[in-house]
């Protein structure tokens, strides 16, 4: 705690506009500077999520992505410059975050989130941002967060629509499986790469994910648990709806869970979702 205070003093100027804010203040800033957040995916959602978390001062920021930057990413994945095309997304994103804030710890994980590493990755952080782009990873990450009891800021964007909710928060916050116990058929799941997405749409959702992560790790404000924010960017419509609590009998997050610390690594997500994490 003392070292935290010392570090915070050195950064007082950087964070002065947040510290001066009555609703936030030095206490919340200290919590943020002492927190660790994992961002899974350094694409359309992960770009602003990682950048805003780094800038606002999260103490340790992990970024997971196994892909390389492609030219077709640049229209929405603003954390990557043209010069980064061909390089690792996780490294490019980490470098951008360090350039914005060298006082925080940034960890690039150039690997795919997989049943074999998900729990270990998630357990290394206090909160997690789901900035992935496929059903396989979304179920896996939610399960890992349910098992490890880590709050998960889940965002998604496709076309001109976006969704945002917080999973696995507190005693009654549902997980992804509570809402969607059965996975949709792959043909019902659009991905950015085939269905298209308007650049600022994941930008809006990803920035909101950073905001929710800040709220969750500082305890300030009311996180979007048991609520879903829906964005219709074309209509300029945004509203929040009420969601169920944790489901009795959920295989991932209830007392009767069958997906556990021991079993998660061998769960067949490909069979369950009918898809691979890298499916187009």
């Amino acid at each position, binding site marked *: 705690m003392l070292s935290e205070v010392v570090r915070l003093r050195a950064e007082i100027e950087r964070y002065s506009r947040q510290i001066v804010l009555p609703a936030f203040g030095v206490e919340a800033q200290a919590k943020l500077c002492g927190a660790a957040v994992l961002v899974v*995916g350094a*694409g*359309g*959602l*992960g770009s602003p999520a990682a950048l805003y978390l780094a800038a606002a001062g999260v103490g340790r920021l992990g970024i997971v992505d196994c892909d390389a930057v492609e030219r077709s990413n640049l229209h929405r994945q603003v954390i990557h410059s043209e010069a980064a095309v061909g390089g690792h997304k996780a490294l490019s994103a980490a470098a951008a975050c360090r350039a914005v804030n060298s006082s925080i710890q940034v960890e690039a994980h150039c690997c795919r989130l997989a049943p074999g590493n998900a729990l270990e990755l998630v357990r290394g952080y206090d909160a997690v941002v789901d*900035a*992935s*782009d*496929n*059903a396989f990873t*979304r179920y896996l990450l939610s399960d890992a967060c349910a098992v490890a009891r880590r709050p998960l800021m889940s*965002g*998604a*964007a*496709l*076309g001109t*629509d*976006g*969704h945002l909710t917080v999973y696995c928060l507190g005693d009654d916050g549902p997980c992804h499986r509570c*809402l*969607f*116990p*059965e*996975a*949709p*058929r792959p*043909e*019902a*799941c*659009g*991905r*950015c790469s085939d*269905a298209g*997405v308007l650049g600022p749409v*994941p930008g809006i959702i990803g920035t909101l994910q950073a905001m929710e992560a800040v709220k969750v790790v500082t305890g300030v404000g009311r996180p979007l648990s048991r609520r*879903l924010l*829906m964005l*219709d960017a074309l*209509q300029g419509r945004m*509203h929040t*709806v*009420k*969601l*169920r609590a944790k*489901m009795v009998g959920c295989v991932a997050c209830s007392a009767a869970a069958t997906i556990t610390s021991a079993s998660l690594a061998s769960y067949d997500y490909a069979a369950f979702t009918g898809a691979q994490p890298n499916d187009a």
Partner: protein
Amino acid sequence: MAARVKIELSGGLEIIFGNAKEYTAQVPSGASGKVTVLDVMLYARDHLLTERPELFMKGNSVRPGILVLVNDVDWELTGELQTEVADGDSVVFISTLHGG
């Protein structure tokens, strides 16, 4: 009996509903004599859906991955298919998004 209901489609589901995100429909009651979300769903399938019904329903309910809201509340909290609806109520069918 019937109820005048606002039916909304979102998350890409509008594509199989003639690309319209919003309909207002006079939904007739089912066997029970009351209008339920089940009746709304069947009405949407029979009168509004334009293609690929398997992307809307599976068996006697919506397909996995679709969330249903009655007046902006998750239908799990209101009684799912048996939720009664009345004039002016809204029923939203949202396809969950996975993109990023």
